[in-house]
């Protein structure tokens, strides 16, 4: 026990332990003029999934597009919280789009546009971004789509 803690103990004060278990994930982390945004899916603000399922198995590609759009809407809430004013964004750098997919679904880029079109329509050329799209086996809460993003702030 350290000397301050010993002195506090003599005063009857026991320092409580701050427990971060399960709370270590941030919605975003800033590094200089870059904002790294965590993986976002089609969830509402209470964390409830708005869509569930696997694209190509129990969801159609069109539903995949809609899941990607809903993930963009949810991510915009995080982005606005991160940057304060959307005009503070210089441009979007990179997105990783991940579909919970199966069967014969291989059309990830077209359906990931459900995410990307929101940004190009809202921000114009600054909303364009490098992107990778892939299929995976499962997602948290069985949502069909997750995406993370790196964006650049104006100096």
């Amino acid at each position, binding site marked *: 026990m350290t000397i301050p803690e010993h002195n506090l103990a003599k005063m009857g004060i026991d320092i409580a332990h701050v427990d*971060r*278990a399960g709370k270590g*994930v941030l919605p975003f*982390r800033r590094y200089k003029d870059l904002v*790294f*945004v965590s993986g976002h899916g089609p969830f509402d603000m209470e964390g409830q999934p708005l869509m569930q399922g696997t694209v190509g198995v129990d969801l159609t590609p069109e539903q995949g597009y809609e899941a990607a759009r809903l993930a963009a809407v949810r991510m915009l809430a995080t982005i606005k919280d991160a940057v304060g004013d959307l005009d503070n964004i210089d441009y979007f750098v990179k997105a990783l789009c991940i579909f919970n997919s199966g069967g014969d679904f291989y059309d990830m880029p077209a359906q990931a546009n459900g995410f990307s079109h929101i940004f190009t329509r809202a921000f114009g050329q600054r909303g364009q971004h490098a992107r990778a799209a892939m299929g*995976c086996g*499962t997602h948290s809460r069985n949502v069909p789509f997750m995406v993370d993003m790196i964006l650049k702030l104006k100096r």
Partner: protein
Amino acid sequence: MSVAEKRLERIGLTIYGDDGTIRSGAGNALYTIHEDLLFITGLEPRGEDGQPAFVGRLGREYTREEGYQAARLVAVNMLTVIQNALGDLDRVDYFIKVMALVNTADGFSDLPEVADGFTDVMTEVFGERGMHARTELGATNLNNNVPIICDAIIKIRD
């Protein structure tokens, strides 16, 4: 002893002395440094002997709790790499971004709860500075059939 090492000792974890056993194959760096950024390769839950300590998938061979423990071991591997890269864990300014790849079967979807094993170790060791943005996905196959692999981007102290 660094602050981070003291905290590690308190939670009963020991990093490995050498990152040589973690190295998976020739030509693949365990980390690279660009200015004040440390990029860490995707790491597996390996024991000090360098062998995977967990082999199998979540939802088949492993439960959520076992996956959590595997994720904690990934964090031990990463702390070993950081120690060797920076010489001192206290040179970590803060964690920026982590990607957690979870090897899943049969629709297992508790990915955040498994990846929290990694994240919890980092917040236990670094406090707020160990927190990070994170993306998880359920992979259909991982190297050596390990249950989880994590990579990271870390800011080094100026």
